[in-house]
């Protein structure tokens, strides 16, 4: 009994940790895509952010400097994306793929050139990372069955960026549905001509959206390398950017349902880690590969059967050309 409870608490705690980068990245995608700019490049921006954070933290010794560097690097890529797709009306998907390719190559090469550790950055010690925060009374209530542990390890004990991600969801919802910027953001993703004729600049609005995307991807990257992890490894995002996009689709481009999608994926991931090598009744040990594709299969199944049609913003993917 107590074992099961412990198992559940640890599963939940790990779900929260795994969900954080997904939440940050899918909210990043939210801004860009609601503005009508499809962003396949979440993955690349996150990866670049992760590298910049780890490298800077290793050199300066400050996680804050690392976070700032991650954001700056990711913003730079976001600007490149914006320049290609907004200013020059390039193909958004192609630009995104290009960013991913560049990020994957560049981070590995730079890591090797600067640190010569086989594509890694030096491992960081506690002072160079964002560590779990200790909540008041966590020790005192630890003894309370289930809830005590839950409070100490799931609600509390997480690092700063986790709480940031938690706050980002209501903040995004508020921005999107309660502010002028949000109204315009949603409008430009549906019908940019309506925004243009209302006297609002379509490019400037889209640039702002893409920059927010860059900001959040940077934070997500920093989380991977200097909060959850203790250094950068080659391709450490491992498809999280795509998974974040899947969560966004699953959530029908809305903040809270997207959060639910992220939690679902994170939970499968957490479960997956605990199932690997474990022999299940009837089927025996399940091959790792099958467990790893679980989130994707889940997306397809959920989209096909349960959530219903997920319709992207109408203007997503198209450059805006003045035209009647």
């Amino acid at each position: 009994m107590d074992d099961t409870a412990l198992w559940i608490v640890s599963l939940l705690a790990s779900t929260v940790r795994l969900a954080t980068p997904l939440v940050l990245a899918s909210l990043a995608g939210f801004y860009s895509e609601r503005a009508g700019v499809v962003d396949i490049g979440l993955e690349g921006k996150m990866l670049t952010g992760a590298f910049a954070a780890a490298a800077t933290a290793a050199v300066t010794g400050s996680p804050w400097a690392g976070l700032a560097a991650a954001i700056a690097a990711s913003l730079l890529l976001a600007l490149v994306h914006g320049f290609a797709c907004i200013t020059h009306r390039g193909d958004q998907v192609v630009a995104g793929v290009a960013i991913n390719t560049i990020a994957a190559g560049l981070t590995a090469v730079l890591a090797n050139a600067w640190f010569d550790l086989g594509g890694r950055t030096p491992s960081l010690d506690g002072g160079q990372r964002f560590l779990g925060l200790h909540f008041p009374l966590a020790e005192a209530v630890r003894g309370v069955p289930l809830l005590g542990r839950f409070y100490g390890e799931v609600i509390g004990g997480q690092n700063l960026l986790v709480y940031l991600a938690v706050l980002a969801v209501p903040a995004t919802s508020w921005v999107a549905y309660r502010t002028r910027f949000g109204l315009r953001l949603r409008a430009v993703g549906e019908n940019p001509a309506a925004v243009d004729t209302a006297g609002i600049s379509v490019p400037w609005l889209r640039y702002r959206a893409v920059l927010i995307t860059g900001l959040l991807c940077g934070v997500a990257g920093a989380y991977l390398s200097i909060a959850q992890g203790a250094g950068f490894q080659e391709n450490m995002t491992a498809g999280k950017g795509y998974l974040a996009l899947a969560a966004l689709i699953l959530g029908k481009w809305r903040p809270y349902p997207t959060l639910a999608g992220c939690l679902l994926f994170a939970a499968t991931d957490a479960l997956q880690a605990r199932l690997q090598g474990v022999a299940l009744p009837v089927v025996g040990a399940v091959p790792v590969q099958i467990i790893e594709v679980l989130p994707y299969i889940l997306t397809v199944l959920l989209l096909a059967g349960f959530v219903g049609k997920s319709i992207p913003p109408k203007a997503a993917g198209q450059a805006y050309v003045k035209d009647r």
Partner: protein
Amino acid sequence: MSQTVPLSVPPQPGPWAVELVGIDKRFGPVHANKAVSLRIRAGSIHGLVGENGAGKSTLMSILYGFYQADEGQILVNGAEVRIREPKDAIALGIGMVHQHFMLVEEFTVLENLMLGAEGGALLKDGIRKARAEVERLEKAYRLDVPLDAKVADLNVGIQQRVEILKALYRGAQVLILDEPTAVLSPPEVQDLFRILDALRAQGRTILMITHKLKEIMAITDAVSVLRQGAVVASFHTQDTNEAALAEAMVGRRANPAVRRPGAPAGAPLLTVEDLSIFDERGVERLKRATFRVRAGEIVGVAGVAGNGQSELLEALSGMTPFQRGRVHVNGRDVTPESPMDPAQARRQGIAHVPEDRLRRAVVKPFPAFQNALLGYQDDPAMADGPRLNWKRVAAATARLMEDWDVRPRQPSLRTSLFSGGNQQKLVLGREMERDPNVLLVGQPTRGVDIGAIEFIHRRLLAMRDAGKAILLVSAELEEIMALSDRILVMCDGAITGELAAEDATEGLIGRLMAGITDDMEHGSRADAAGGAA
């Protein structure tokens, strides 16, 4: 033809609200506006007429800042202004209702109204103020719209009101309307004119583009005629008439096509029995339609838009499945169990000119020659084996453009850059040149100038005389009455009456359109004469 300069003597004392001086605009080789000068009296309604592609929309888009003039000046209330983008125009009190509405369909009416005029960084305060202000405007001009409804759920008449409200909410003193009546039913047009009248009474200035000269005579104070990019005449409305305007527009006397009774109609080519369509909510949108169209006749379908005509066309063309009934066409039986898709329908000799050309008939970014092939891409004459021969397609398109007077004659121009009427001629040409047996045609002359209307009407009549069956859906009662041999009237998804051309009067059709069917005497006589099942 009277070649007058722009109004120089004011119709009534009062300042000019807008003065355009020597506006010139080229789009590559197309000279859309040639040194256009135009003055609009404050507090008046000024009409703008001209053939398709004459440059009306371009001129108004320049005034609204959507395009930049290459040369020329704009004066608002006597002062020279620079309008670089719509923002500048809005700040000067100029509002525009575009030919194709600029609304965010996923938004509510209120959100659409507020977009760009939110009244603060947070929506909260703005919403309250907007609601109050909009309600005041609604009352002042009797512009009722449901503020919290999603725009996508509203019909075009209401969407247009939203556009007008949007402009007024931004404080427009000058309101530009680009073909506002093209998509409206007659009662909706009456409503619009009532609103425009009220706006004029409040001292606002209105610039209205239309192809319907009757409307010019009914509501405007002055009117200017554009031809091939230049202003060729301006009149005080009271000093002119429809014939004179038509002559100024096309440079020759108007000569409307009139139906001559054709040879007696032949065998039925299209038989429709008990046809019903249910939408996804289970509402019956088309109710047991039963009729026939025979070789050598035009059957017109009259009705206020949204009363099942669109569903009828879509079912017959294979675009939407139907749930009950039977269609018999060219020897083929179509039932809910054995449906027919649009490609099969084409092979069956059915051509379809959809009502909504931009959504259903063309791909806007394609060059004209690709759209001229769309739907007939399997034509072996246009291909070498599996490869389409674009040269041949372009050559065929050039011929089509010549035949159908599509301007400019550039097969490789992006379709969205043709004016509305010219897009329409391209689609009509594509469908009618293939020599179908049955032609389904929706709103063939929507947004089309009077010269082109005559032309299109003649082609439809010629096709009828060649022994084809034509089903014509139109919101223009005049058009229905001018062309049809028999008229079906629809109301609320059902056919409420069927009249022989000789028996049809506007009054009778109007009553049937409203669903008043007590006058069954006429209806049943036409039924018998028409030979409906």
